[in-house]
C-alpha cells in the first residue's frame, strides 16, 4: 500500500528542445502477423489488437499473410490519389497564408488510409469522414474545382457558403457531410449500416474518428450499437499520435491500444500500419468481407503520424520536438508505395517526376480557376443562401428575416 494517493498525469516522452524519441514504440517487422479467416470469431482475434499488421518491408517488398492482391494499375491509382492529396493540401495551405481562405487542415502522412479504403469500398458504400481523409475523395475523382470553391467560400461553393472550409459533403462520392464537432457522426455510420441491413441492401458504412476523439461518449455508443445489431460497418480510428497539442497518452494510449477496445464489444480489433498502403488495403478487404457476410463490424486502428500541424491555426513546434515528424519510424506512405511499385518493376523515378508535374499542374489550374471565381470575401454565394435549407420549406421566421435583410 502506498503512503498516500497521488494523481497521475500522463506526459509525452519528449517536448520542444528534446531530441525526438520513438523508442517506446514496439514496431514489429512487416509480415509477422498471421491472417486469420475473416469469419473467425472475435475472441480468437485478440492478438491482432496488440500487434501491428504490416505488409511493406524496408525495401518496399510485400511480405506475409496479409499481402493483398492488387493490380499494378490500381496501385498507381492509389499513389496518384495520395500524391494529389499531398500537392493539393500544400497549395491550399499556402492559399491560407495568402488570405484566400479562412482555414485549412492537412492530412500529411495519413494519405494512405483514405486512398486505399476509398478504392476497396464500393461506390454504393458510404464513408463518414473526419477532416483528415481528403484522399478518399481524391481516389474517387472528386472535382478539384469543387474543393477549391468550397475552401474559398466563393460563389461556386457547392455548400453555398454555409460551412467552414474543408467540411465537405459529397454524397455521390460516398462521402457524408462533415462538421466541426468531433465524434458525433461515428454513430451515424452505424445507423446507415443498420438501415442498409434493414433493407437487405448491400451498402456498407465506414467511419473515421481521430484517436483523441475516441474519448467521446459517441465512440462507445456507436460501438455498442454496432456490436448489438451486427451492423455492417467498418469503424476506423486514425491514431496519428496527436490531438492538437495533446499526445495520444491523453486519450489512453499508454494504457492500451485503440484496437484493444474492440474486445469489450466482442468485435475484431485490427491494428494496422496506417502508412502502409497495402496493409490498409488488406485490413479493409478483410473487414469488408466480414461485414458482407453478415458477421458485423470491425474496429481498425490505423497507426500513423500527423506530420503537419493540426491546422492553419497551429504551430506544432510549441508542443513537440520540431523535427519529430522526420523521425516517425513508419515512414511516409507515399514514399513507401512508390518504393513498392518500383521494387515490383511497375514504376520508376522518371515516370514519377512526370506524374508529379502533371498533378501539380492540375492543382495549380484548379486553384487558379477558383481564384478567378474569387477567394474568401472576394466572391460568395448570394446572401439569400444563408436562409435556405434550415428546414425543407422556409418558415415565416426566415422569410421575414430575409426580407428584413433585403435579400
Amino acid at each position: 500500500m502506498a503512503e498516500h494517493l497521488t494523481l497521475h498525469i500522463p506526459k509525452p516522452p519528449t517536448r520542444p528542445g528534446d531530441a525526438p524519441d520513438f523508442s517506446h514504440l514496439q514496431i514489429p517487422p512487416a509480415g509477422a502477423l498471421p491472417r486469420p479467416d475473416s469469419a473467425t470469431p472475435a475472441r480468437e482475434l485478440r492478438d491482432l489488437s496488440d500487434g501491428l499488421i504490416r505488409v511493406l518491408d524496408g525495401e518496399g517488398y510485400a511480405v506475409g499473410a496479409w499481402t493483398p492482391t492488387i493490380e499494378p494499375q490500381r496501385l498507381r491509382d492509389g499513389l496518384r490519389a495520395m500524391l494529389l492529396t499531398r500537392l493539393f493540401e500544400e497549395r491550399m495551405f499556402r492559399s491560407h497564408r495568402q488570405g484566400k481562405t479562412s482555414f485549412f487542415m492537412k492530412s500529411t502522412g495519413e494519405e494512405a488510409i483514405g486512398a486505399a479504403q476509398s478504392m476497396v469500398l464500393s461506390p454504393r458504400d458510404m464513408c463518414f469522414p473526419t477532416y483528415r481523409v481528403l484522399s478518399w475523395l481524391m481516389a474517387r475523382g472528386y472535382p478539384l474545382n469543387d474543393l477549391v470553391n468550397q475552401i474559398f467560400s466563393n460563389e461556386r461553393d457547392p455548400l453555398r457558403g454555409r460551412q467552414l472550409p474543408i467540411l465537405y459533403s459529397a454524397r455521390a462520392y460516398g462521402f457524408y457531410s462533415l462538421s466541426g464537432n468531433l465524434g458525433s457522426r461515428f454513430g451515424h455510420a452505424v445507423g446507415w449500416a443498420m438501415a442498409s441491413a434493414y433493407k437487405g441492401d448491400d451498402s456498407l458504412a465506414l467511419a473515421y474518428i481521430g484517436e483523441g476523439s475516441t474519448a467521446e461518449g459517441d465512440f462507445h455508443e456507436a460501438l455498442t450499437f454496432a456490436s448489438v445489431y451486427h451492423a455492417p460497418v467498418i469503424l476506423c480510428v486514425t491514431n496519428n499520435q496527436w490531438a492538437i497539442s495533446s499526445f495520444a497518452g491523453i486519450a489512453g494510449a499508454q494504457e492500451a491500444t485503440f484496437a484493444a477496445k474492440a474486445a469489450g464489444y466482442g468485435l475484431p480489433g485490427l491494428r494496422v500500419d496506417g502508412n502502409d498502403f497495402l496493409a490498409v488495403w488488406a485490413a479493409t478487404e478483410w473487414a469488408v468481407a466480414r461485414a458482407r457476410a453478415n458477421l458485423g463490424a470491425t474496429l481498425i486502428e490505423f497507426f500513423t503520424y500527423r506530420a503537419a500541424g493540426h491546422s492553419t491555426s497551429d504551430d506544432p513546434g510549441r508542443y513537440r520536438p520540431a523535427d519529430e515528424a522526420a523521425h516517425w519510424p513508419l515512414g511516409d506512405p507515399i514514399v513507401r508505395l512508390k518504393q513498392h511499385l518500383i521494387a515490383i518493376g511497375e514504376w520508376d523515378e522518371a515516370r514519377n517526376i512526370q506524374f508529379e508535374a502533371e498533378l501539380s499542374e492540375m492543382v495549380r489550374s484548379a486553384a487558379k480557376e477558383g481564384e478567378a471565381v474569387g477567394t474568401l470575401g472576394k466572391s460568395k454565394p448570394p446572401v439569400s443562401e444563408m436562409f435556405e435549407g434550415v428546414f425543407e420549406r422556409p418558415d415565416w421566421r426566415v422569410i421575414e428575416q430575409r426580407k428584413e435583410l433585403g435579400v
Partner: protein
Amino acid sequence: MAAMSMIQALNSALDVMLERDPDVLMFGEDIGYFGGVFRVTEGLQKKYGLKRCFDTPISEGGIIATAIGMGAYGLRPVAEIQFADYILPAFDQLVSEAARLRYRSNGEFWAPITVRAPYGGGIFGGQTHSQSPEALFAHVTGLCTVIPSNPYDAKGLLIAAVESNDPVIFLEPKRIYNGPFDGHHDRQVKTWVNHPAAEVPEGHYTVPLGKAATLREGREVTVLAYGTMVHVAEAAIEETGIDAELIDLRSIVPLDIGAIVASMKKTGRGVILHEASRFAGFGAELSALIQERCFYHLKAPVARVAGWDTPYPHAFEWNYFPGPARVAAALKRVMEEN
C-alpha cells in the same frame, strides 16, 4: 371512428405508418417486445416483426445517432426516448447533427427523424420524470417541436411528424395519456371516453405542423397553451367565466404566428401557459412576439403562468404545477388591469 385514448391514438398513428411505409421503423428502450413503459408501441413488434420495432441499449445519444444515420440513408426512423428528461444525453446529436445536417450539406443529407418522448409532470414522477424541456429545442434552428393535447391531434400530428423531412421532437404530455387533466388533482381521474377529441379515425390522416387550433373563441383575453395546460386553461376559463379565446399551439416550431397575432389584436390581453419553469421558457418568446407585433393593441401586460424557477419537486407537485387557480388568478389580473 373509435374513441381512443392518447396512447391508443399514438399507437394507431405508428401502426398506420408501419403499414403504409416500409421505410418507417421504430426503436427505443423497452419499446419492442414489451411495448414501451407507457405501452404506446404495444403489439407493434408482434404485428410487424422484430426489425420494425425493437429495443435499444440504454443510450439516448446512440439512439439518436443511429436514427440520424438511418434517416440519412433514406429511412424514416421513429425513436422513443423513455422520458423527455432523458433526452439530454442526446442533446448534442439533436442540435449539432439532426438540426444542422440539411443546412450544412446543402441538402445532400437530412434527418427525417421523429423523436417521441413522454413529457411533463403531474404524475408524481419527481425531478427526472416530470420536466418540460421544450424551450431548449425551440431555440435550436432546424428542429421542429410538437406537443399535442388530445388523441385526435396526437395521431394526426404524429403522422405528420413521421412524414416530415425535418427532424421533429414530439413531446407527449404523459399526464393526459389516459384522460384529460385540468389540474384539479383532487378530483376524480377522467378518461378520454366521451371527449370529442377522442373520436379518432382508424386510418391515415394528418394534422399539419405549424397550425394552431382555436379551441374556444372569445373576445376578452387570449390564452396560449399547449399539452396538458390546454385542459387547465379550459377549466380556469370556465371557472372565471371570462370570455377568453383559447389557442392550442400544437407545435411551437413551426409556430402559428398568424393565429396568435390575430387573436391578440382582437382581445388586447394575453395569458401564456406552460408547465416548464418560467425563466427563459417558451412563454418568454411568445410574450416577446406579442409585444413586438401587437404592442398598440395591448390593454394590459401579457402574463405568463408557468412552473416556478426551481427543479421539479416531488412532494410539492401541486404547489409547483401551474394549476387552474394560478391560471384563473392570472386571467383575472389581466382583466383587471387598465
